[in-house]
């Protein structure tokens, strides 16, 4: 019993020592206090507008008919596209794209109306700048929707044998389709990317903070706080003590990132609080142990910046949010399963935006616990080795 008490005392000693270190190191304060606070706000501001509206296009109307005017008016009235210019020729329009005044061209050929009236197919050409996908999407989808409506009207007007208006509508489109965009109904870019970024910030800043702290210890060759015993389970005591310090700080940040930020910026957040607590406990422990384990790579404190910062974007991709999980090549899927963030992001997004329960994210929950176990053991070994050196 007294042995266990001694162990707990040691853990608390390490905890206090790490906390002291934490508040006296500007680097750690920057990455573990300022960044988790400020970056979510910054990103929320950047993606504040969520959707792309009023993409400028140029129209070349060689048809000059009722049809072409209807097309231009409908396109201009749509939320996503704005007819910014009219050009006399395709060449002039192309120059406008080149000068970046517009992102696409709608070309209405001279035979547009005559062909329709003659009962032949006619064409509307859409040229888009493909450098930004969301522009392409806005320009093309708007044209499709407008032409779809116009086609329906043309079909109705070309029906003569039918009698009632309802008959005409049904014959023009016998089957009706409802499209329901679930869980992110506004199709917002921020609502899509931000939850993943918020969760990733936890892991990345923890790795930076722990790396800086351990790097300093390597430089100063000072691993054990005064009064701590060496010997049995020394690595585990060190890992737990340090872990407590970071856990304390990051319990607050996790609540801020998963509850406060989504509320401030009104992102969908319909997860149950108890589920969140249960889910993020293993995530935090896994991240902290992961950070402690990787600290053996850090001989000098600055190196951790080089090691960690660039991984953020690849890690985001591995989580299967910016790129669908089913399309990730098997090798990279394997690499992704090493990281706590991969599972935490998948789980959090489904709980927060889709309203999944802990039972629905059991795969991710279990994976986080497995990682926690493995990384805690490895972190203890690393801590022991550095303390002995």
């Amino acid at each position, binding site marked *: 019993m007294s042995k266990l008490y001694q162990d707990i005392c040691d853990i608390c000693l390490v905890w206090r020592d790490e906390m002291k270190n934490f508040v006296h190191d500007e680097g750690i304060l920057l990455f573990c206090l300022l960044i988790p606070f400020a970056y979510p706000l*910054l990103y929320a501001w*950047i*993606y*504040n*507008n969520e959707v*792309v509206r009023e993409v400028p296009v140029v129209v070349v109307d060689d048809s000059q008919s009722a049809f072409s005017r209807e097309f231009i008016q409908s396109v201009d009235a749509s939320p996503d596209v704005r007819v910014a210019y009219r050009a006399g020729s395709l060449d002039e329009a192309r120059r406008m*794209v*080149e000068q*970046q005044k517009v992102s696409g061209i709608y070309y209405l050929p001279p035979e547009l109306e005559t062909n329709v009236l003659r*009962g032949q*197919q006619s*064409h*509307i050409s*859409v*040229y888009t700048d*493909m*450098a*930004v*996908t*969301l*522009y*392409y999407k806005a320009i*093309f989808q708007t044209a*499709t929707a407008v*032409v779809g409506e*116009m*086609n329906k009207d043309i079909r109705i007007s*070309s029906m003569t044998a039918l009698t009632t208006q309802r008959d005409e509508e*049904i*014959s023009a489109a*016998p*089957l*009706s*389709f*409802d499209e*329901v*965009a*679930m*869980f*992110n109904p506004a*199709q917002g*870019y921020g609502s*899509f990317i931000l939850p993943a970024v918020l969760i990733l910030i936890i892991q990345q800043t923890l790795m930076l903070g722990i790396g800086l702290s351990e790097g300093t210890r390597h*430089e100063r060759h000072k691993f054990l706080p005064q009064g701590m015993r060496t010997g049995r389970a020394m690595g585990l005591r060190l890992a737990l003590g340090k872990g407590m310090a970071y856990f304390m700080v990051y319990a607050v940040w996790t609540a801020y990132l998963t509850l406060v930020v989504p509320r401030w910026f009104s992102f969908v957040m319909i997860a149950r609080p108890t589920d969140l607590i249960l889910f993020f406990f293993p995530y935090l422990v896994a991240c902290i142990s992961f950070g402690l384990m990787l600290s053996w790579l850090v001989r000098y*404190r600055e190196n951790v*910046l*080089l090691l960690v*910062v*660039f991984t953020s*974007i*690849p890690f985001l*991709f591995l989580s299967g*949010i910016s*790129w669908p999980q089913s*399309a*990730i090549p098997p*090798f990279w899927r394997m690499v992704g399963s090493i990281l706590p963030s991969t599972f935490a992001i998948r789980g959090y997004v*489904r709980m927060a935006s889709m309203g999944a*329960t802990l039972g629905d*994210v059991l795969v991710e929950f279990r994976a986080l616990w497995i990682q926690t176990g493995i990384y805690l053991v490895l972190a203890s070994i690393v801590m022991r080795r550095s303390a002995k050196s």
Partner: protein
Amino acid sequence: MTVLKRILNISLREVRNLVTNPMYFLFMVSAPIIVVLFFTTFLRDGQPVDMPVGVVDQDNTTTTRRMVRMLDAFQTSKVVGQYATVADARRAIQRNEIYAFLYIPAGTTSKLLASRKPSVSFYYSMTTLTSGSLLYRDLKTIASLGNAGVIQASLRARGATDKQVMTYLQPILIDLHQITNPTMDYNVFLTTTLVPAVLSLFMFLLAAYSLGTELKFETGPNLMHHAGDNIWIALVGKMLPMFFIFLNIFFIYELYVYYFLGFPHLGGPWPIALLGVLTVTASLGFGIFMFGLVPQLRMSMSICSLWAVLSFSLAGAFFPLASMDAPIQSVANLFPMRHYFLIYQATVFNGYPVSSVWINVVALVAFSLLPLLVFPRIKKALKYYVYVP
């Protein structure tokens, strides 16, 4: 000693540094190669294929089964599950088993035959925008094909020819011209911004790192001595080796994606080469400038990493800058990657003349010249600064 000889001496001294410190090799050669391979293999399919979708077919007739087969036949989607109710299918989305589902209510076929306009619904999750919008596109196609099938059958029965049927179905067609990226290859969209952004992150950090380590290991006075107390000679000599290595790495990346993987590059080799040189000089210039502003190893590297991480969003390649708030649009000009992206998409991707983005070229040249403003500060730091960890 002549100026050239001094520069050569310092460059040789720097080469020795680069060789002895493994961090340089790791982040100038290994990590860039890994990053290039990561993104190009991760996204090698160009578009996600065979994404899992489900079906709730409560009607279960030959007509509805044909619709399901049609959905399955698309390259993007793969029908992996049949569910009894909409609630079941929604739970399957929450459990991450499917990304979308088609709901065909009971009585669809009989209503269709009786011309009572039945309704079919398609639910798709927009938590991953990429998969959501691609699946939406499939749905649109099914909707029009589904309608077309019914109309075609009834028109044929009345003796219409195929051509008449086509004209009736689609009086106006859209010709889409996806200039320069006709296959909508996401590898092209993402890799061409993400990889240079990561490379520029390494350049930011390593420029600050190599100057900062002179302070950390107190070799600054020695460097100034070699340079005959001339900061120009000291910095030019010091940065030359790094410049050449990074330039080569950047060229290898460009060679690989444009000429080996065949990414669109209508602009030909000259804009590619120009962009390579400008990106490297601007990024190194920015790193040196940051070090000059805050002549301290850790702080300058921290600022550089914070800046570099924001570049990924503020380049405006994914969510367009024009849709962000006005202050962000102005601030984005302070990020070299923003100008990189504008020059890239205009000259390399679309093949427009360099003059169309001359202002961005000027901006990158300005970033390259920024260090001139802080030469005196760097000189002072190198000569007198005492390292504080």
